């Protein structure tokens, strides 16, 4: 009886994923090793040439840039997000308000917020108008369509995903552990690196994964804020399926992206296993 109920509970979600995730994935996998069709789509004939194409320096460059930017966005989110999470975890009276402010950006669409960044960053945007009107600069600063703009957009969009898991692990931190370290002679800096940080590492790892993976696959941000020059892997996938009409290569690029994601997930799981307190080992 209980087993039947378990299966019945699992069935809808499993079927959904099978139909709309596993099947398309298999289709993509098939497409990535077939010939390119003349007007999009695929033509028969097995080949690995679409994967081999990644060895072309042009695409290796895209790959490297994608990893680099995703990593940079993750580091920036960590640097900005950790102190914020710490303050929220420490505050008693304003905790709920602060958490609300963190998730407030989710109330509007990501696309709208990215367009808003354009208004902020373009040559006649808010930042440059301020710089020019105050006389700090005489020519507008080129902000839009630069790597900086892409990074800014990624960090802006993904910061909450870093703050929330770190907050969750800091909030669980037993205050008496901090007092114990103080009584044992730990100054604030030593206390942070020997107690607070190690015990919030699960949050740091989870947050980094939640930022790194979407950053790897992002294309709206790099498309709108980076312009045509700052192509990331996500943009490559998009363009292959739309303008270039090269479905097999687009599929292969998708799988390259998935491989990167998989590597990131496996690495983070490894880290977690190593550092998690062995509470279950009793």
């Amino acid at each position, binding site marked *: 009886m209980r087993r039947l109920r378990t299966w019945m509970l699992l069935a809808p979600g499993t079927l959904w994923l099978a139909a709309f995730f596993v099947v398309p994935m298999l289709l993509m996998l098939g497409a990535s090793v077939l010939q390119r069709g003349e007007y999009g789509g695929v033509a028969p004939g097995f080949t690995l040439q679409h994967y081999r194409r990644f060895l072309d320096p042009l695409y290796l460059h895209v790959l490297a840039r994608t990893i680099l930017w995703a990593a940079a966005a993750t580091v920036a989110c960590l640097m900005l997000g950790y102190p914020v999470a710490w303050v929220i975890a420490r505050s008693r009276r304003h905790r709920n308000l602060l958490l609300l402010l963190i998730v407030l950006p989710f109330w509007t669409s990501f696309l709208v917020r990215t367009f808003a960044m354009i208004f902020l960053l373009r040559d006649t945007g808010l930042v440059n108008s301020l710089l020019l009107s105050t006389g700090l600069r005489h020519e507008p600063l080129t902000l839009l369509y630069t790597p900086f703009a892409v990074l800014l957009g990624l960090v802006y969009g993904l910061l909450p995903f870093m703050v929330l898991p770190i907050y969750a692990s800091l909030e669980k931190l037993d205050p008496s552990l901090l007092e114990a370290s*103080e009584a044992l*002679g730990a*100054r604030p800096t030593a206390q942070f690196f020997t*107690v607070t940080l190690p015990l919030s590492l699960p949050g740091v790892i989870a947050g980094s994964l939640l930022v790194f993976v979407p950053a790897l696959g992002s294309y709206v941000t790099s498309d709108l804020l980076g312009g045509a020059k700052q192509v990331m892997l996500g943009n490559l996938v998009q363009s292959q399926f739309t303008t270039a009409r090269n479905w097999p290569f687009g599929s292969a690029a998708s799988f390259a992206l998935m491989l990167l994601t998989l590597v990131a997930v496996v690495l983070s799981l490894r880290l977690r296993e190593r550092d998690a307190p062995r509470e279950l*080992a009793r």
Partner: protein
Amino acid sequence: MPIAEFIQVSKSFGPVKAVNQVSFAIEQGEFFSLLGPSGCGKTTTLRLLAGFEEPDPGGEIRIGGEPMGGKPPYERRLGMVFQSYALFPHLSVERNVAYGLERHRVAKSAIPPRVERALELVRLAPAEFARRRPAELSGGQRQRVALARALVLEPELLLLDEPLGAIDLQLRKAMQLELKQLNRALGITFVYVTHDQDEALTMSDRIAVMEQGRVAQLGTPAEIYESPRTAFVAGFIGDSNLLEGAGGRRVAVRPERIQLLPSGAQPSGGASLRGRVEELSYLGDRIRVLVLLADGSRVTALLHNEGQLTRPIPWARGDEVQLFWRPEDARPLEQS
């Protein structure tokens, strides 16, 4: 010179005065207990001493004669044992114990032998326990690690915040004895917070009984038990019968100091009251008799069972009895 002094120390949390104008001194090497019910300010007093709280302006805390105002905990060089143990879950037992030594920049080569000695001091075999994580230890073992972690720094003052609260009774009795022995053997001053009067009486050289942020009475266990100053102290340390003494003054009489005599007996010299036995409880080594007085109040007498009481118990429910005690056993109380 006392090792620690509280001079007119208060601590307010908003409108609540957790500690109210407290002054006392703790002597070098003694086992000093802060005893009281929850919310009496004993833990806050300990936290003030440790430096986790700052006293309100006007009060001063001295350690070794030196004023502690504004000095953070990590500069006070005290040992502290927490009720929740507060062991670092991500560090092994030996790294937990080494933690304080590392923070005080003890030479790397000197750390392992000192860790080993500290573990042996609290009777944990280093070979068996050094590599374990706190989660792999029992409650009693964790408490020993917490103790070793504090003692390894050889502090002059060890603060303990209800350290045995979460340990079962059998082990607690053994640990009480061990703590007392450590206190004597190491010459370290222990400041011990507890709500358990038995524990305080068993271990302490002196006890400060706290009530509503104030020290209600400070003295040796015998002084406090024999001459409680207020009704609160009389009731909190052991049991007491509160009675109206000569001249309308309130007195406290310990149940074991009350004798029961048959109705009509005329004892010479001493106070006596008439009543009726309402309840008898056979406790093995003692028999507790609840006597209802004519004015409706009740008095408890505790009779020691030295063999004379069993065959048969000389009293039964409903018996008219005479309660008798020596005048020096009726302790006058201050109005609190």
